């Protein structure tokens, strides 16, 4: 499957350029929206959880404010949720192309997911630098290590998006289910709250979700300055498995897309 992508790298590049180019085409502030949307979310969450609910951060947060605590996981979450959503829609929104031209359809999913990750990675970097400048204990030197955690997230997003895109093409109900599912996962993952606040009995359940481990690791690396661990390979293993299964499923159905679009 990577061979297919390499053989069609120019097409993938073209799709990526198109994804990035059309995303904010026609809007006044253009790419600024990519940053404004998560910033607005962050402001709302910061208000709710520091002024209304007053969340107590554990000492592992390294003395960061709630805003920094939430921000380091919120951006990766937005990459994932947006990547999955756009990837899922990529087949339908390019129906015109699929009906007329022969090419590996998975490239559309890759392009949609990669572009979401790329756009928000830039925003993420800008936010981290800003927070550090404001005196938050962000370990900027650890930022490159974050890539080793975000790359498996991206691969897994491709896998999940591929399954959803194939299903969405055949059954129109998938979109509805996914938007509910994403909300459940969002609140079921310690993004806005520390895992330490979750009752002991539920914590083992939450650990089944690999995103929980990822969220914890992101905070350890960025806020506590920890390095990479051998256990991070588990995240890679899970991501590779999701990606592989997702694409196998996709390839099984993709020759029939034209019949349904």
């Amino acid at each position, binding site marked *: 499957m990577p061979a297919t992508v390499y053989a069609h790298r*120019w097409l993938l590049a*073209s799709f990526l350029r*198109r994804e990035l*180019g*059309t995303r904010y085409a026609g809007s006044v502030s253009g790419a600024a929206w990519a940053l404004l949307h998560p910033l607005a979310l962050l402001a709302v969450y910061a208000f709710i959880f520091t002024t209304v609910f007053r969340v107590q951060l554990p000492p592992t947060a390294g003395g960061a404010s709630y805003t920094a605590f939430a921000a380091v996981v919120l951006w990766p979450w937005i990459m994932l949720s947006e990547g999955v959503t756009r990837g899922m829609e990529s087949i339908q929104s390019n129906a015109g192309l699929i009906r007329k031209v*022969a090419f590996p359809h998975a490239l559309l999913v890759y392009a949609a997911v990669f572009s979401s990750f790329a756009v928000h990675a830039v925003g993420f970097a800008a936010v981290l630098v800003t927070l550090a400048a404001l005196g938050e204990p962000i370990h900027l030197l650890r930022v490159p290590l974050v890539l080793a955690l975000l790359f498996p997230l991206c691969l897994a997003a491709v896998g999940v998006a591929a399954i959803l895109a194939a299903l969405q093409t*055949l059954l129109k109900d998938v979109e509805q289910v996914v938007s509910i599912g994403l909300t459940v996962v969002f609140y079921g993952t310690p993004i806005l709250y520390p895992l330490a606040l979750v009752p002991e009995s539920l914590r083992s359940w939450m650990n089944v979700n690999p995103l929980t481990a990822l969220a914890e690791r992101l905070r350890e690396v960025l806020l506590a300055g920890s390095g990479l661990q051998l256990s991070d390979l588990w995240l890679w293993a899970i991501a590779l498995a999701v990606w592989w299964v997702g694409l196998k499923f996709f390839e099984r*159905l993709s020759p029939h897309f034209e019949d*349904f679009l």
Partner: protein
Amino acid sequence: MTPAAATATLAGNHTGGSVLVALQGIGKDYPKVAAGGDRLRTLWGLLAHRADIPHFRALHGVSLEIRRGEAFGLVGENGAGKSTLLKIIAGVVKPSAGTFQVAGRIGALLELGSGFHPEYTGRENIFLAAALMGLSRRETREKVEAIVAFADIGQHIDEPIKHYSSGMAVRLGFAVATALTPDVLITDEVLAVGDESFQKKCIRWLERYLGDGGTLLLCSHSMYHVQTLCTRAMWLHEGEVRLQGDSFDVTREYLTFHEEKNRVQEQSPRAAEGLNPLIRAMRLERADGTVAGTFASGEDMVLQGLAWSPDGRAPALLFGIVRADGTPVYGAHSDDSGFTPLRADDRHFAFAARFPALALLPGKYTVRIHALDPEGLRLFDTLEKDIVVTGRTRDYGLVRLAHEWRPGTLRPEAAKAP
């Protein structure tokens, strides 16, 4: 001749280059997806590799071979499965039955303007189309100017495609397809959309492309284009091959089929009998009296007609022949020949006009017959029939004029001074 027999006899007819496209027993069933339940059953069927998916049949048992350097025509009514077949060859649709091999790079112009992103400018779409064909950005850059020049849409090339007219999108699509020099070029009704001069440009390009050994798969409703560009053709009817073989034979059979279909439909009541002369019936026959819509150049044609006159006086008649594009070829009055139609009963008059050794060159024509008042002054009624004249000739123009080549008598002194 049955379709199967036609295919068999013609299979050995062509020799030449290597086989670029080979289809054996291709069938395509489209799943029925209107209801949600059908969609679920189909999804399950596809995942479990089961065959009992609710479907309708778009193509059945199509076999075809196209060799390098060949031009192949595809004709058939709307919904006969032509586009589905082209999509299978282009690799866009997966056939549900049969096997197929395609060698080389396929360039497909399926329902034009396709593969274009509406928000993107023409120039940006050129890069996207080139990437779809596997070209790098650098390779594309070298070809862009040629594409822009061929499309010849001026400043519009830097405007979004969504502001293009359908004709402009076609021009760009054809320009892109031509610049990327595919091994096999598939065109689906491309020539029908562009304006006259662009059509000519396309035909000229196609002729050069074929002359240079290019391979073409042309789907068209213009029998003229199929006859002039293609050597072999296939007629698809309701998803199956009705006839395959020499393009002249296939197009003639196809046109005859339409003639017969139209004749059945045309037996509708004519305008009410009034005070003016009418033409009540008209048909075109061969020398042996059989009704026909297609004549070979040089064959005899007979126009049979029945006129009606309100006062029982024989009406004057006028026939005219025009080419399909409206250019008049010839017309003549019955008066001038001193002809009076034969009285069939009180008010009906039968007449015929014989055209021995039809001089029309191959092409489409319309034969008209008009009824005039007995004085031959006012024209009251018209009936017309389209005909196709077939034949193979390098002559051009409208009609063949009698001529003979012979030794000349001019001396060198007659040459113009240099």
